């Protein structure tokens, strides 16, 4: 187990290095640089600036400097934002994105497991048909449309009731978080519902379930102890990639609901070609996702003893 964990971690580190390298060279491939602005900068000043930021060095040397900085955990200073270190940007904005993402994952996982189990138990009956219809709808509607509709619904709800039930946009309190995270989680919830349904259907009539019934266990106990526990395993496997999808997909929801998350900074940084912020956010996100997937895999081995052996 320990050697497996170490091997996975090493692979993770190499993957993050690959991500950093790919981003670095892709970014420097873009014409222009962060010093190019609307205002013409005199040649001498430009030279000084380039020297100061190390942009005059050959690309490969810049790359090695960048790598050595990154191993010390220093992402540098933003080119476009006044006096802000990239580490500070990440430290301040990431918790917002992470809170939104975690809430969305919780919504998605709980909803997906519950609805999936329900549809399997009421297979081909009304609850199954209604839920599966909603699931197909949830898979087919893009997240930004969901977000827009969610906000539109909230506006008209507040309008008809005459007072503000939930805030329409912004960030800060729990009320602010509810609708955006629900909207963000819906797509994943639909996907997990489908997965849970098929894994539950495999299990509904398994031998051990029949044995449990024969022993005279109440249906609720069979459901929680025997069916749910076994059916939930495949859902946990896809949670790693699902976290990846939700955290990166967050910036549409962030922009529609005016949430000060990290995603917005990335889009802005790319438009302004703010080298340090692009590198910082990409490497940080990449590392976060890679280690999230590793964590979920390890967790899976912990939950399912059959996997631990192999």
């Amino acid at each position, binding site marked *: 187990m320990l050697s497996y964990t170490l091997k996975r971690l090493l692979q993770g580190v190499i993957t993050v290095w690959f991500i950093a390298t790919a*981003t670095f060279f892709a970014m420097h491939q873009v014409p222009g640089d962060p010093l190019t602005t609307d205002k013409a900068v005199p040649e001498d000043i430009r030279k000084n600036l380039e020297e100061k930021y190390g942009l005059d060095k050959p690309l490969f040397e810049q790359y090695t400097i960048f790598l050595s900085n990154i191993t010390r955990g220093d992402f540098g200073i933003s080119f476009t934002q006044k006096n802000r270190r990239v580490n500070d940007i990440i430290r301040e904005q990431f918790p917002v994105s992470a809170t939104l993402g975690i809430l969305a994952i919780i919504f998605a996982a709980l909803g997906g497991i519950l609805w999936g189990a329900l549809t399997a138990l009421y297979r081909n009956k009304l609850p199954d048909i209604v839920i599966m219809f909603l699931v197909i709808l949830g898979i087919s509607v893009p997240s930004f*449309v969901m977000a827009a509709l969610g906000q539109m619904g909230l506006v008209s709800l507040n309008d008809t009731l005459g007072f503000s039930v939930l805030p329409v946009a912004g960030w800060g309190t729990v009320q602010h978080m509810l609708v955006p995270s629900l909207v963000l989680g819906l797509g994943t919830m639909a996907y997990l519902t489908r997965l849970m349904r098929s894994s539950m259907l495999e299990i509904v009539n398994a031998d051990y379930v029949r044995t449990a019934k024969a022993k005279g266990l109440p249906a609720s106990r069979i459901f929680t102890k025997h069916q749910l526990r076994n059916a939930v395993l495949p859902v946990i496997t896809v949670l790693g990639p699902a976290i990846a999808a939700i955290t*990166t997909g967050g910036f549409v929801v962030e922009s529609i609901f005016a949430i000060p998350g990290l995603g917005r900074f990335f889009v802005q940084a790319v438009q302004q070609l703010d080298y340090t912020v692009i590198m910082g956010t990409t490497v940080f996100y990449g590392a976060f996702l890679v280690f999230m997937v590793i964590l979920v895999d390890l967790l899976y081995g912990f939950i399912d003893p059959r996997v631990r052996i192999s």
Partner: protein
Amino acid sequence: MSESTFSADDFKPLPKGAAAEVITRPSMSYWQDAWRRLKENRRAIISLWIIIGLLAFTLIGPYLWTVDHAKQNVDKISERPFTSTEAVLTTPLQPWDIGNRGTPSDPLALAEPATTQTARLVWQAMPGASAYRIYRNIFPYEPGAGLGLPLGETLLPKDTYFEDRLDLQAKTYYYSVVGLDSQLRETAQVVTLEVPVTRVITLTEATERGLLSQASDGKLGEKIHLGTHPFGTDYLGRDLLARLMEGARVSLFIGIVAPFLFVLVGVAYGSIAGFLGGASDQVLMRFADFVVALPFLLFMILFKIAFGIGPGESGVMPMLLALVLLSWPSTARLVRGQILQIREEGYINAAQLLGANTSYLVLRHMIPNTLGVILVTLTFAVPSAIFTEAFLSFIGMGVAPPTPSWGSMCNEGIKTMLTSPHELIFPALFISVTVLAFNLLGDGLRDALDSRMRSRE
């Protein structure tokens, strides 16, 4: 057959060549069988028709609905679907003969009926007012509430007229005139008038827009129909139906061509890795793992910018390239797994014994046997490619503005979503229906083609 009905004829030898038994069901190839199963799936067939319909919509549609998608129509901004608008034919704007305006019998009146060209106000002089300020509002006058947009001030007490030509729309305005004292401060003297504005169009403009074939065809004062927009217009007054047709080209092009290309790359890569095996397989698949680990959307944005677009280009090709570069590994993994499985099958050994070489084995046995799985992957890749395009266009990183795509139309529609929701709803509906159709078709194909992945319904 009962036991007593044999006759001597039954024991005659059959003529040579005749079949001893007739097989009642013709033998079916894998694809015929899959097609038969797919046809039984009603949802998949309906989806297939929807997809064909969408293709016809974008390929044939522009020939039937010949409205130019880029043409702006400034009197029809954000118009609701199927609104019928008419305009009165008129002459070009005539200068106002102010000297002959006379004195109105009402405190505030129109010198002539207001049109979208001009609204000409005259009023009775107010006692003690040394100048006047004119306001325009879209809400009725209420004491204490604001008067609306200040249009201008007259300079002299005798100037009791004003001509408003500022962006007049065909709706009702409420004009207010406030008397000003000698220090140009507002006094309590206010008169208000409700002014309905009629839409007019000049003969030359009607001819230019193709509403009249010749200027002489129209009579002044006659009402002319301005043309309907079945899906309404957008915030710049462009026909939404034409834009949806044009936008479908980008969305469906990316949605269908990108998956096709990256599946092709993935098949080539995966089959090479699977067939080579050993160390080269390890290296190739590790590289694929790295590409999978790249944060997808961040890299889509980065690559799209890195490939760059020149002026006047729509940016579809960089997006296509970025999508292919980032999406191939999942297919490669799948195909490699399939190839590894098939390699152990008996018929591969048999073919090898018969002297088949590697390329023959791969092209003739391995790829055809994975084709079912590949086709299913392809169908499921279409919705995600459409989503990616829509997402990128939505955050403004997709196609460059004059070119419409469903995603960028959603992005534009969301700004006016509370006042004219149709601008968001139609493109969103098209994206959703397309994605839904491909998802259901994918489900159907999976059930029909791949017995192992068949969903248990």
